């Protein structure tokens, strides 16, 4: 099981992702925007972060940069969840500190599998 931080401003999406990941036994913490995500990440030390890119207050790119700047979180995988994540945007996302991406709308049948691929092997008991 892993502790996963979901950064998402849309309540429905947050509920959906949380529900799916909890259903597969993961522990979920959440933040509604980039700024809150930086605080939550340093407080709860998640094993993986799912980050929406377009959010109020601070967008996903900025938040990822801040989190990477925190020494304890420098190696934590950050996964982008974005509607614009078509094939061509992949390079830009990877270049800006993300380890990977999941495109939105998410496919419930494969979502958990996609996320779990990025969990560090040593990070907690693997399901």
């Amino acid at each position, binding site marked *: 099981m892993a502790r996963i931080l979901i950064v998402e401003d*849309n309540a*429905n*999406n947050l509920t*959906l992702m949380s*529900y*799916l990941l909890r*259903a597969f036994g993961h522990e979920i913490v959440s933040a509604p925007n980039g700024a809150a995500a930086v605080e939550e990440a340093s407080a709860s030390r998640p094993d993986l972060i799912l980050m929406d890119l*377009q959010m109020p207050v601070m967008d996903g790119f900025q938040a990822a940069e801040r989190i990477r700047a925190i020494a304890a979180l420098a190696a934590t995988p950050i996964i982008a969840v974005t*509607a614009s994540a*078509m*094939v*061509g*945007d992949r390079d830009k996302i990877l270049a800006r500190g993300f380890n990977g991406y999941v495109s*939105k*709308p*998410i*496919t*419930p*049948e494969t979502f958990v599998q996609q996320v779990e691929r990025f969990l560090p092997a040593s990070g907690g008991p693997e399901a």
Partner: protein
Amino acid sequence: VTVPERRLVSPADHLAISDGALRVSAGVSAAGVATVLTVAGLGLWGALTHLTFLAGFIPGGATMKANTAILLIASALAVALGRHADSLGARLLGCLVVVVALATLAEDVFSVDLKIDQLVSIDRGRGPGMPGRMAPMAAIALSAIGGGLAFRDRARRLGVALTLVALLIASVALVGYLYDARSLYGVEPFASMSINTAMCLGVLAVTLLASRPQQPPVSLLTDTGMAGSLTRRLLPAVLIGPAVIGLLRLAGQRADFYGTEFGLALMVVGCTVFLVALVWINGRVVQRVETRRRGEEKFKALLESAPDAMIIVNASGHIVLVNTQMEHLFGYRRAEVLGQPIEMLIPPRFRGVHQSHRDGYVADPRVREMGTGQTLFARRRDGREFPVEVSLSPIETEEGRLVSAAVRDVTEHRAIQRTLHEKNLELEQAIYTKDRFLTSMSHELRTPLTAIIGFTGTLLMKLPGPLTDDQHEHLSIVQSSARHLLSLINDLLDLAKIESGKMEVSLQPVRCADVVDEVMATLAPLATAKHLSFDVENTCPDVMVRTDRRALSQILLNLTGNAIKFTERGSVRLGVATLDETAGRLLEINVMDTGIGIRPEEAARLFDAFSRLQETAGSPEGTGMGLHISRKLAALLGGELEYTSTPAAGSTFTLRLPLKD
């Protein structure tokens, strides 16, 4: 456009006479009067004192009679009296001359003695005729002069005719003296006119004519136009030429070089040659003037045909020539601006600057085209100002360097520009608003769909709990409809972006095989579900293409998705190859299926937006935009999208992209 023909000879054309000509004629008049007064005065003195050398310049020749001298003096005074305008005194003196001269003539005709011949002085001379009586020809000439004086301003034509008669008589006498005075003694009635009388009569007649320089025939001499220049050129030649030729002929005959007949023949030939030469020279002059005039007319016509107001200015900045358009634009009449400084057409506050600019231009002139200078302001006659554009070009002429300025009113042009600018801003605003709308629509529409698709998915995964068969079926319909709606929205947004030119492609080196593999991986489940054989034949697995990865991927997804959708059995195959064409190397990707194919009549609408072919109309999937968007994207990438198809046997769609090494 008509250019008014210049009137060459015009009786009332006072404007065509220059001040110089007037001064010359006044001088001629004064000199003539003085000459006649002197010679006639000497003659009168001679008659009174019997000093015959004063009255007759040729020893032994005829002498000027006292009456002749008095009449000549009276005539000269009359000319002087009326030198500027009609004068009663001049007319009365003229009448006196006529009366005395006619009375003398009557004495000769009727052989009576009216006792007037020796009224003043007793004639002791030995000349021919009655003692003291003037020669009949002198009497005729004097009466003609008197008539000329009397009718100078009252019956102009008659006056001129009489004056010319006097001139003719005097000329005959003078030419006679020139050739041989002696041979004329015996020939009445010229016998006894003295040379000084003849000279006085001639000078008087000329002086009389010259006293009215603005009237014919002298007006022709003083004319400033071509007529004047021709007359001035011809008259002296014609006056002197034949007389000189005659003199030569006479001299030759007297020296016994030839007889009368041959002499005459020589003289005729001489005169002919002289006159032909005159005519020829004359023709040359006329020709030159005409050519110049025609050139000027052409120039004026050209000026008139120009759409702009044209103003020709000389080096000192004075207006030399303008066209009708200039009159309309500025509200001035031609006569009001000619000769005026160009600055009169400029608002006062710009005049100083303009003057210095103008001096600079004249010093270093070059053609300045319309619209290349900044917009200036011009001033109408009524004081209103308006914006103009001015083009300038220097013209080198005989009168020095001129500058031609074409002036165009740009008031309307500016208003249109302003309106266009405003419309553009509005349009930009509208496009911006539309783009904002599209972007927010994209987000707003997709977000709820994400939730619908997502939670339908969790239900279908039975995560919340088990489903009945009906529930499962209904939720499946919800899910596929939501997915269809999502693809519709995505296509619409893509289409809007492409149509508005907002679709940006970023060209980067892309490994073609990567994109093809992704597409294969994405669509393999669909092909497998329909039991289709699905593979790729890549003859150039390492080729890199400079393109937009996302656009290429979307095109291949569309083409391959369609192929799978419209094929019920058989295969869908992708082929990747490079081609060497004359235009350069190409990357060619073929998507081949064994599906229903495309009928020829459907070909025309195949790539149109929202064109779903009949066979596919019942299918729930597809938006009818896939091929349309694909072809637009292919064009954006600098490539092309084509197809070949056999109905019921299959289709091949071919994407070609340029390869740069």
